[in-house]
């Protein structure tokens, strides 16, 4: 029913058919990951209602896996929250970059903020900054939200019957999808320099820093931004 609502709203807004199809692919992939989250949380002894609440209210997969792993390894809940928040800090510069793609009115932004995740940011940015990008942000965010939560529920119910998502290669699907969405913007020489610098910094920092920090430190890639005519 929800997907129907998205498709109906597609007719009213600037959402293009092809964009909806691409968003559905991301939604399908995140459903598989959500299933593994539900199954993992159940195996770690997290109460089902708490797991559902986590997926609905936090809606940031990486931090959810991390928080559950910290607690499962005997860490304190405070440590789980701190680790999760550190991992999610990147959403601040993302919000700064996408600005009104998340919505133009204040209530729209309040809603749009909750569906700000990596895939959605990349998905919308690949479609410029106009009505099409805003529609893509809403639709993709909504589908990712539904997929993640439906997946969590199925994972909770199916438990250990859920196959390892690694056997489907889903862990390769997400970086590949992000890369595909990024490629057009990497045609600009400054973006290519910044991106290369960021990738090198993130990879070099990964063995030494806790999850989340390497990606933030990768902002050092901005040192390679150079100047444009307008800056001079």
């Amino acid at each position: 029913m929800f997907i129907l609502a998205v498709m109906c709203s597609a007719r009213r807004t600037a959402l293009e058919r092809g964009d909806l199809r691409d968003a559905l692919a991301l939604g399908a992939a995140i459903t598989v990951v959500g299933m593994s989250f539900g199954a993992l949380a159940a195996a770690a002894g997290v109460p089902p209602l708490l797991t559902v609440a986590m997926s609905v209210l936090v809606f940031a997969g990486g931090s959810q896996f991390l928080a559950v792993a910290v607690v499962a390894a005997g860490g304190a809940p405070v440590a789980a929250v701190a680790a999760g928040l550190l991992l999610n800090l990147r959403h601040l510069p993302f919000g700064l970059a996408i600005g009104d793609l998340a919505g133009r009115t204040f209530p729209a932004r309040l809603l749009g903020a909750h569906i700000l995740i990596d895939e959605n940011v990349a998905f919308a940015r690949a479609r410029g900054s106009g009505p099409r990008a805003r529609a893509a942000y809403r639709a993709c965010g909504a589908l990712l939200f539904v997929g993640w939560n439906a997946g969590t529920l199925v994972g909770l119910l199916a438990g250990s019957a859920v196959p390892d998502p690694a056997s489907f290669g889903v862990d390769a699907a997400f970086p590949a999808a992000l890369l595909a969405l990024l490629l057009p913007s990497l045609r600009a020489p400054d973006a290519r320099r910044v991106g290369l610098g960021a990738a090198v910094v993130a990879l070099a920092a990964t063995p030494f820093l806790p999850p989340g920090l390497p990606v933030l430190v990768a902002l050092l890639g901005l040192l390679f931004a150079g100047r444009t005519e307008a800056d001079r």
Partner: protein
Amino acid sequence: MTWTAVLALAAGTYLVRLAGILLRDKVTLPQRLARLSDLGATALLVALVAAAALTEAGGFAGWARPAGVLVGGVAAWLKVPFVLVVVLAAGTTAGLRAVGVG
């Protein structure tokens, strides 16, 4: 995991998300900073791609995953439709794992 922890993580995450979006609204960024914030998003996303493609828990993720991402990347570069890019990447990695490549 406790309710307090989940609610704290949820509230903190939401505020981080909202802060960036509202901050962009409150201050009119000079053109130079607007460009840098846009390039910053590119930096974060490329860093995420690199880290997600190559690393797992602070170490190397094994060959199957980066191989899948590479196949997906080349397909995207050749303008293969997005859905197929995702399927090719996952399929390559799944296939390699099925034949015992880590």
